[in-house]
């Protein structure tokens, strides 16, 4: 079952079409990860799923209703979204920022309820930022700041959570921390999560459902174990690689071809493997 689906979705910035007639169903209660090379339209798709971008054609449906026709506040009670580079107001405190996640549940005459209080404390504990409550967001490290933003999105308490590259700017341990947090939310709370990730291996590790995009189209989707192959990596990223089982999880692990070496050029004939090896960003 899918509460959130895209039907023949076409997305464009001005007159440049980025996504072409995309059909996508986000499986309920699972972690879906969208991957693809830079400028493949993955973030654009996520923005459209969260009604930040109006479709140029087709529609995004929430429970069968067109997103564009629903009141934005009602959407905000079902879909939480964390953009790629959110900007906090100057000098805002952590607790203040997280509490703004309650916006869609509040009204002018109902600015704070016990439910708000519980949701905010819960979100802050879950993301381990409760100790930072009175600190200014400006003064935090990148990892802490990202956790605060995620806490804000969690405080919104939506069934669907869309995160646009939540691990960018984080070191590896914080990346793992964020992804584990996402999985915990999914497994313990049954939240449906959609992530855009750069790192194919992290995507394969954490996704229940992987969507590979290229040039605005879905190339393959399904459980990572079934779809991540050497052919797919070559097709989508133009990268020669070896796919082996991850020694810890058993999920597919993409190992890029050998890096460039000076001796490969002495023959005047560089090995095709090496010349194709572009490092993955992540």
């Amino acid at each position, binding site marked *: 079952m899918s509460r959130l689906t895209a039907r023949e979705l076409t997305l464009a910035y001005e007159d440049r079409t980025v996504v072409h007639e995309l059909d996508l169903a986000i499986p309920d209660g699972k972690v879906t990860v969208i991957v693809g090379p830079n400028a493949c339209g993955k973030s654009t798709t996520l923005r459209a799923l969260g009604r930040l971008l109006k479709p140029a054609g087709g529609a995004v449906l929430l429970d069968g209703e067109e997103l564009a026709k629903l009141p934005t*506040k009602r959407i905000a009670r079902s879909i939480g979204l964390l953009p790629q580079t959110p*900007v906090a107001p100057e000098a805002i405190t952590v607790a203040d920022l997280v509490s703004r996640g309650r*916006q869609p549940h509040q009204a002018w*005459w*109902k*600015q704070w309820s016990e439910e708000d209080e519980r949701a905010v*404390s819960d979100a802050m504990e879950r993301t381990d930022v409760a100790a930072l409550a*009175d600190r200014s967001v400006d003064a935090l490290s990148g990892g802490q700041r990202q956790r605060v933003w995620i806490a804000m999105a969690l405080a919104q308490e939506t069934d669907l959570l869309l995160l646009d590259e939540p691990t960018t700017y984080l070191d590896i341990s914080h990346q793992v921390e964020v992804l584990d947090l996402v999985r915990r939310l999914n497994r313990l709370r049954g939240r449906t999560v959609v992530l855009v990730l750069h790192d194919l291996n992290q995507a394969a590790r954490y996704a229940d459902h992987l969507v590979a995009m290229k040039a605005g189209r879905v190339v393959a989707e399904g459980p990572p174990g079934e779809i991540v192959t050497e052919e797919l990596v070559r097709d989508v990223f133009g990268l020669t690689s070896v796919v082996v089982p991850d020694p810890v999880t058993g999920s597919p692990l993409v190992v890029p071809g050998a890096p460039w070496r000076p001796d490969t050029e002495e023959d005047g004939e560089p090995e095709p493997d090496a010349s194709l090896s572009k490092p993955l960003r992540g």
Partner: protein
Amino acid sequence: MTTVNLRPAGYGIVRAGRASFLLHRRSALVAVGLLLLLAAASVAYLCVGERFVGPTEVVRILLGQPSPSTFVVEELREPRLVVALAVGAAFGIAGALIQTVARNPLASPDIIGISQGAGAVTVAAMTFGLTSYTVLPYLSIAGGVLAAALVYVFAWRGGLHATRFVLIGIGFAIALRSLTTLFMTKGDYLVAQQAQIWMTGSLNGRGWDESAPIRWTLLLMLPAVLWAARAQRTVSLDDDTATALGVRLGGVRLGLVAVGVVLASVATGVAGPVDFVALLAPQIARRMTRTAQIPLLCSALTGAAVVVLADLLGRRLLSPVELPVGVLTAAVGAPYLIWLIVRSRTASAGGKA
């Protein structure tokens, strides 16, 4: 009604029946402080003049007791004080709202063309022989609203872009100022002089009749201002985050700008474009309250305090010559703002725009 201290940190919750309101505690304290300052400044304003009336005497007159100075205080000084308070508060709120929407501390009605629009229409009317302060405000309001509408329409590109809004506003401000100058050179000498004084911002000769538009506007806009105080919170986040939180950004921004434009235009109509109040008051208020968004009530109180103090100085500094209030508002507000910025420089980390 009870007050409980919960999250978010720094806020208290005021409950009334089933309703609950967030109250920033520091802002509340600052507001009380500003009210006291304003009360003191107002009494001083009523005391000082060609003939000094003692503070106790002034308070007695205000409480309705008979006194030989009743006429001086109630008929000569009080109406002008009320204009000063109302104009200051209106500019303070207008500046706060426009700075919030533009996300730019330099944006204010006197920068983005609203005051210039009001000015151009008013000076044009003066050149054509219209000089009554009971009619001019309405023309000025029309001019300000029209200028703001044009800026808004030109800055619109599938949504309101904050930087575009400010830049186009500055463009309009320059064009409208030239238009005003044109009218002034066309008109005769006396009109030009009157227009010049009006354009500096002056409270001279403003009584109950002249202040009627601003008093009514403030009263009628009160519900809108209460709405704005809450709505401001949500537009201080970036566009994507605010939209994701269910904020109808387009509508909310238009509403905030509309409230700001109406207040700024009416205030300009009554007193002329009193420089810097709308620019300074919100920034001073925000630095005092240390809130993430510009505090609306404190901006209003700061604006009122700046105008009252500036006019008090203007009346007495070179007495018997009266200086227009606009000459002194910057002198009153700017040093304090600079001091606040210098003091906080060490505290704030990172160079955020």
